[in-house]
């Protein structure tokens, strides 16, 4: 229970949002799962970026006589049913997954956040219309909707990403709208309204920056789900098409070999698992670190 409120008197130290960010960082570093998450994410990011330089093989190169070989020194992750090196494919697959995370979130945030801001700040019928559209999107099971959009857009990994992004934006609209509705009542918003600033400026310069923390945390948690959703689409054949080494489709294709050559579906599966877990751990820790009650006034 906070019984005292440390008051701050005249200032002698350096500027503050640096202090704020620094505090968030410090708190993050103190959280073991957060650090673990960051490490895992770091590894995967590194693989995603530097991958092609680390594994020289061609992910599509088939070597049929060598099919379904277990892990060995030549092929550390073994080979799949077409003799392709699984390690290479996992590396390229990770690249794709990272892109997936980024692109899906980009689409979702770019559509969802402005809509939420407009709905929240304008109110009235604009708000009603936007919210009803949001509700319609949200009333469909997201995977089903993603599938439907995917079918319309056509097959392929990029279309799958677009489909998932188009299904994802409503959550951001709701999230941002809620934040803005409550921020709207703050004194500092009333203050800038009383100073005659335009609605656009108020939303852009004052309201949205204060929702940044929540959006960031939500996005970091969603990256994992985005990857899973896209992998899911590929799994059922709507996303990545062969021979694209997408982790989900690798699991799908390798399913039948689970009992005989476990490395074929398992290793890509584990790659998905670790990527998503890493991001989730980080997102959770980030949320805890950014909790305003911890930061104080």
């Amino acid at each position, binding site marked *: 229970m906070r019984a005292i409120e440390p*008051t*701050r008197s005249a200032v002698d130290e350096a*500027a503050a949002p640096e202090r704020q960010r620094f505090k968030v960082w410090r708190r993050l570093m103190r959280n073991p799962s957060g650090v673990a998450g960051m490490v895992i994410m770091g590894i995967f990011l590194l693989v995603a970026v530097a991958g092609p330089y680390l594994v020289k093989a061609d992910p599509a190169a088939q070597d049929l006589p060598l099919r379904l070989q277990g892990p060995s020194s030549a092929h550390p992750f073994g080979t799949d049913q077409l003799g392709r090196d699984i390690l290479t494919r996992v590396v390229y697959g990770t690249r794709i997954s990272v892109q997936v995370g980024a692109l899906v979130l980009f689409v979702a945030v770019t559509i969802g956040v402005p809509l939420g801001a407009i709905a929240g700040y304008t109110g009235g019928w604009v708000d009603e219309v936007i919210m009803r559209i949001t509700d319609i999107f949200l009333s469909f099971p997201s995977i089903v909707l993603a599938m439907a959009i995917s079918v319309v857009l056509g097959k392929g990994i990029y279309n799958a990403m677009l489909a998932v992004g188009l299904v994802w934006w409503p959550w951001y609209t709701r999230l941002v709208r809620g934040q803005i509705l409550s921020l709207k009542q703050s*004194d500092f918003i009333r*203050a800038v309204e*009383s*100073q005659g*600033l335009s609605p656009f400026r108020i939303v852009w310069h004052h309201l949205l920056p204060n929702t940044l923390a929540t959006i960031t945390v939500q996005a970091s948690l969603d990256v994992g789900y985005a990857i899973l959703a896209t992998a899911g689409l590929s799994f059922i054949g709507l996303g990545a098409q062969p021979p694209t080494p997408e982790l989900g489709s690798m699991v799908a294709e390798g399913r039948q070999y689970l009992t005989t050559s476990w490395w074929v579906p398992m290793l890509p599966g584990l790659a998905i698992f670790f990527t998503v877990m890493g991001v989730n751990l980080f997102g959770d820790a980030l949320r805890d670190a950014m909790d305003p009650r911890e930061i104080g006034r």
Partner: protein
Amino acid sequence: MSLLEVRHLVKWFTVSRGTLRRTVSYLKAVDDVSLDIDEGKTFGLVGESGCGKTTLGRSILRLEQPTSGDVVFDGIDLMKLNAKELRHLRPRMQAVFQDPYSSLNPRLTVGEIVGEAVEFHGIARGRERRELVSDLLRRVGLEPSHAGRYPHEFSGGQRQRIGIARALAVKPKLVVCDEPVSALDVSVQSQILNLFQELQEEFKVTYLFIAHGLNVVKHVSDQVGVMYLGKMVEMAPSEELYRSSLHPYTKALISAIPAPNPRQNQERIILEGDVPSAVDPPSGCRFHTRCWLAREECRSSEPELREAGPGHYVACLRV
């Protein structure tokens, strides 16, 4: 000459229930209030919670849209302005808010907070703007170097100074001060009250000073208005209000203020009951449920605000 003329201002909030948002009743926050403020003067507005003083202040500035009534500011009918014209006029009528912890955007520097509207309205740009901000900061008792710092590094009193600087930066004629010292430590309150008075002399601004403490309001105001449940019950020059208050509520308010003097024999008027809700307020005179002078007529007819002496208005059937 009057800088501000408010006539029959009404602000009702709808109270709705249910999924279909049916209007169940109205919260009559401000119910037919009129007042005048002369240029360069301070009008103090006092009352307890639910009296509508804050809503009145916001409605005058059109931060809340009045349900009906007229507000004429510097000769301009505010109710006739569209959104754009209103925004353009806003620099001339500013506000200082109660809570120093929530009235400043935590993500902007002090300099940005104070200078933003100055830049936006084209009052000054670039170096000129920075100098304006520095000057103002100094004038409110801070350092120009504070412009690069963030609000949370400052104490409540200092934050309030920043808020005042922000209001004055756009060169307003009227400043509505909504409980500007209530959230501050006692030892800091007098600093800020003094600051308000100095700035009024220097910048020639007019204040609408809203507070719940009659002692504070009386000290800074030329004229005081007492509100109860959305109505103005008494209005008079401040000294007159204190020495010869007429309305029973004003008397109760004065008597309820604990004086820091144990020997002062306070003729305590202790009111019965709590302040009723502004949703469906009592019939007739709204104060009758707690008034020791109440008679039958007080329950049925609403008293009008009439002049009982030079510049002294009261709304009571028993006076």
